[in-house]
């Protein structure tokens, strides 16, 4: 569904991604793991059109979307829950979710989608009228995911959903990601530093190191890989 081919991205003269190739098949959860600064967020930002790709191609359902404006990419069905959540702290929870549905014309279906989301994340229902800035980190993460879902994406990209969240809540959020993936048969590209959890819920994984994919394999195999265990799974 989503194919990233030999993607290069430069920040000035620094090449942040030096030819990254990732394939995300329909309905799968694929994860991209790697240390801080490896370029994981850069991959997602390039796919969303926020950063310009200097070389390579990004295909969605076979159609080239490389360097399209971000709103067009959302319109085609690729949405993102960005790193650091980036909820609109000045808007209410409900307004945040409505912003997620910005491009949709089928207003009459919103109620059902709200019901679905509130069923998955009951906390959001409780906080519906609250300004998003007053939410806890975990609640903001749920909101960021919910907001990304409101565009009715075919492919959802999640950037570090575990970042800065209480460990117990991280477990909940990851189980929700699996639930959403199954119920909506949604394709998911998950970027994570928490390699343990990411490899647990994904079917295939890529390891990014300083702008290059150094390893890729089915997640179960990656978890057994010596190098991955040493570098990303705490050697356990």
């Amino acid at each position, binding site marked *: 569904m989503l194919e990233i081919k030999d993607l290069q991205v430069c920040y000035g003269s620094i090449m942040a991604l030096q030819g990254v190739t990732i394939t995300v098949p329909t309905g799968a959860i694929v994860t991209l793991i790697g240390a801080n600064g490896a370029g994981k967020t850069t991959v997602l930002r390039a796919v*969303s059109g926020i950063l310009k790709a200097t070389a390579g191609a990004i295909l969605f359902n076979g159609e080239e979307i490389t360097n399209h404006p971000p709103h067009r990419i*959302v319109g085609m069905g690729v*949405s*993102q829950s960005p790193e650091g959540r980036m909820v609109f702290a000045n*808007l209410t929870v409900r307004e945040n979710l*409505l*912003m*997620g549905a910005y*491009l949709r014309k089928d207003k009459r279906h919103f109620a059902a989608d709200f019901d679905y989301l509130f069923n998955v994340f009951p906390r959001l229902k409780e906080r519906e009228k609250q300004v998003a800035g007053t939410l806890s980190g975990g609640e903001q993460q749920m909101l960021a995911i919910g907001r990304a879902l409101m*565009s009715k994406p075919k492919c959802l990209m999640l950037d570090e959903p575990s970042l800065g969240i209480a460990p117990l809540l991280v477990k909940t959020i990851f189980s929700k990601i699996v639930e959403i993936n199954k119920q909506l048969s949604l394709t998911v590209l998950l970027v994570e530093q928490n390699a343990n959890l990411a490899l647990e819920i994904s079917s295939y994984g890529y390891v990014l190191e300083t702008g290059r994919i150094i390893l890729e394999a089915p997640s179960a195999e990656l978890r057994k890989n010596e190098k991955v265990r040493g570098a990303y799974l705490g050697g356990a």
Partner: protein
Amino acid sequence: MTEFIQQLINGLSLGAIYALIALGYTMVYGILRFINFAHGDVYMVGAYMGFYLAPSIMRGFGQKSIASGIVILVAAMAICAALGIVIERLVYRPLRNRPKLTVLITAIGVSLFLENAGQYVFGPDPKAFPDIINDHAIEGLGDLTVTVSQVLVLAVTVALLLLLTWIVKKTKLGMAMRALSFNPVAASLMGINNDVVIAFTFGLGSALAAAAGILFAISYPSIDPLMGILPGLKAFVAAVLGGIGNIPGAALGGVLIGLVETLVVGYSDTIHIPSTYRDAVAFAILILILLFKPTGLLGAADREKV
């Protein structure tokens, strides 16, 4: 006491005009974080549009009729909205990712351009704004002098403020404006076309400036191509006073500046400040607010992103 109430009424109607202009400054700042110094000149263009359109509109909709007044106001607002959008598209958009100082200096350039183009196209001499309403003092208020134009200024301002609040709070584009002002990257990840929202913001602010221009010209019926400079600067001060980027703050700041200015003039003998210092009042307030409360009355400190 009557004297004081009289001053309050005068100050409110002047402040309402500042408030309408200040809203444009604050909305553009909220979204692009720069001060559009050409905004005061859009206000001037608004007044001139009223000047040129009034005769033919009044021929069609009746001399000094309410319908004429509304059509003149709406037409000038629409033209200035288009002007604002064109300025943004041609001048500011190409500079979107340049340093803020570049954009700021360019804004001053646009301002000078509009002022000089105004002198060239409209002529440098003041023009008498046509009577588009039956202005007279309302009777039966004792010693108070309240004119129809003062009531009109306040009524139109309140109506426009309500309309703006509705747009910003309830409509999709208004919500997108707020989202974009908080985080443009996140806004584009929602599928918001930031260019459209920015153009809309310029249009909205410019339309309000045009309304202010018409209202001013109704109250003080002499217009000239440089009429936008001082009210523009004072409205900028009003926006800073209320907390730049904050919409209710801009309205509040405008009203306060108008009131203080009027009171200083009205009581110049009592407080020993010559009334010729009226224009200095706003700038003294600017200095004080920057010294003691740089975030303004209603503004929150902008948290630096880490």
